[in-house]
């Protein structure tokens, strides 16, 4: 069921998250990955593995992507972060450039 405009994000503990490309591009890093010339593996396979990001965090990150998209389109809601995730979650944006 893999449509062309989706991408698969795989966490360290091998959880797979399939999200829209648009959402994924909220992260500039992921965007680069998918558009960089040279035929990197990610682009070829349409999936990105994050061996250093856990599923829980990655899930939250995906939620963030969608929320960011909605927000940019005018739907201004709040993004709720569970306090226990905060610290780890903080590093993600830095890494993902988002």
């Amino acid at each position, binding site marked *: 069921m893999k449509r062309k405009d989706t991408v698969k994000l795989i966490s*360290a503990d091998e959880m797979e998250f399939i999200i829209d490309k648009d959402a994924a591009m909220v992260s*500039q*890093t992921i965007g*680069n*990955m998918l558009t*960089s*010339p*040279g*035929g*990197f*593996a*990610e*682009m*070829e396979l349409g999936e*990105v*593995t*994050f*061996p*250093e*990001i*856990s599923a829980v965090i990655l899930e939250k990150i995906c939620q963030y992507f969608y929320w960011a998209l909605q927000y940019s389109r005018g739907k201004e809601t709040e993004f709720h972060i569970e*306090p*226990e995730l*905060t*610290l*780890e979650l903080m*590093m993600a944006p830095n*890494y993902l*450039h988002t």
Partner: protein
Amino acid sequence: MSNQKKRIFQIEAFQNRVVVDPKYAEKTWKILVHAIHEIYNHNASGLSFEELYRNAYNMVLHKFGEKLYSGLVTTMTAHVKEISKSIEAAQGNLFLEELNRKWNDHNKALQMIRDILMYMDRTYIPDTHKTPVHEPGLNLWRDNIIHSGKIQSRLLSTLLELVHRERTGEVIDRGLMRNIVKMLMDLGSSIYQEDFEKPFLEVSAEFYRGESQKFIECYDCGDYLKKAEIRLNEEIERVTHYLDAKSEGKITNVVEKEMIANHMMRLVHMENSGLVNMLLNDKHGDLGRMYNLFRRVPNGLAMIRDVMTSHLRETGKQLVTDAESLKDPVEYVQRLLDEKEKYDGIISLAFSNDKTFQNALNSSFEYFINLNSRSPEFISLFVDDKLRKGLKGVSEGDVEIILDKVMMIFRYLQEKDVFEKYYKQHLAKRLLSLIVKLKTACGYQYTSKLEGMFTDMKTSQDTMQGFCSSHPELTDGPTLVVQVLTTGSWPTQPSITCHLPFEMSALCEKFRSYYLGTHTADIRSHTGRRLSWQTNMGTADIRYKSNFWEGLEKMLAIMACVKGKNVLRKEPMSKDIGEDDSFFVNEKFASKFYKVKVGTVVAQKESEPEKQETRQRVEEDRKPQIEAAIVRIMKSRKVLDHNNIIAEVTKQLQSRFLANPTEIKKRIESLIEREFLERDNSDRKMYRYLA
């Protein structure tokens, strides 16, 4: 507070090792170097972007950014040097292609590297004020390839060689050229200029210097200019296809200088094909081309203009001193007209109506026409001749055109008063000879009035002179010009009272007393002379200094407060006073003995439009009168049929005018529309009055 108990965030969840282990850095770096190699070797597929990105990220995060950066530079340098070798090794024609290919590869690699090292670009670089990744990438290329000893000169000569080949007619790979040139531009505009443009311009200058020398030996002026034009357009096209747009002006300057500016003099003065030849033969195409090319170089147009001027003066001088044409004034003037027309054509068709050329033309004509002091006389003879011919059935329009042309020539005369003197004489002679002919043909009686008119005009002149000299105080006020006409000699018209403004009537009185005073001792008359003012024949020049249009209109209205015929003759002849109208009232007064109807001396033609206007006005005036009559009749009769209405209305209006039945019918319709009347439902011919 409650969170502390939970202690869910653990530092081990923080997955990045806080290890400042140099070995770690070395290990990470090795991974990256390997990746860069692979990238340069086109083996990048299969590499994980994420892994590389993470490694670079980690290095920077753990303060190994410096190592990363310098390592990057070293690695890239090595690669670029290798590339340089492979390009140098390329044979002959493949050189440029190899360069182009490698350049594309390099750019792609650079992009990939930049992407993986994005984190470094974002954080490390700004912090340390180093240049972002792609810049050292370009600089490396510039230093090791473009400026490499073996490549630099070869590149330049290859490019110039291709340009040269194209100039000699070969077809070259423009796409490749464009890419290479773009590469130079991407490396910096100074690279483009120093490494290509400057030498290109120098070589081009040499090329065109040689070519122009060759051409000028074997082509005539017209053909040479054609060639120059072609080359110029070629260069412009070249720029659009594969050079930087900024080069256009520079290369066109080169062509203009070498092909045109350097040979201007020789071209213009070329025997049998230069400017003079073109002028003589009306070669508009060549002249236009010369104009367009020469206007691009300094003093180009000035040169054309000067040569044209001196040529024109020379030929003009010959024209006016040629013994043959001096014998025939009409021929003389005709030739002048032809010359003027010729040059007008040249200036408008080839020199795009350039004003400076127009001025040169004018000054030349002025110069040579006045070389011959008989020019005014000849021109007046020419005019005379044409007017005479005009009477013989040549269309008035044609004569007008010719006279317009003559006027242009006339303007060049410096001694315009000489012309006037001659023309007066010619005109007078012609009129008098006409009268003599009439006398012979029709007898004395016929012409006596005409002669009388002439005599009157002469006498009036003398009278005026006398009047003015005896009343010197009047020079400041309005000027009066009086023509005293003998009754009987002049055609008659009813004279109408005109209320003259005070200044004018006072002046008239002064004249009257002067005139009568000087003629009291006239033996001829028994009853003394009597003057009656024929203001309807007069014209007045009004100079009204005012900014207010309404004031002027008012004044004009006062002056024209004459019933029926206006004292002021207006041009154009319309009811309304427009801005461009001019009024003429020049007091022509007349008559001894009795008040005689003296007609206007105005040409009959002019009353035609006036007549029509009056007619229209009258028609308009009649309409309401007819309507009033209809209403009156219907009011009393209440119901009446069509024929009877017509009869009644006609009878009522009889004293004023003869009503037109069609017009009456129209009026009835109009009244029906406005619901004063209605038609009877049963009988269409019956009308009913509506209260």
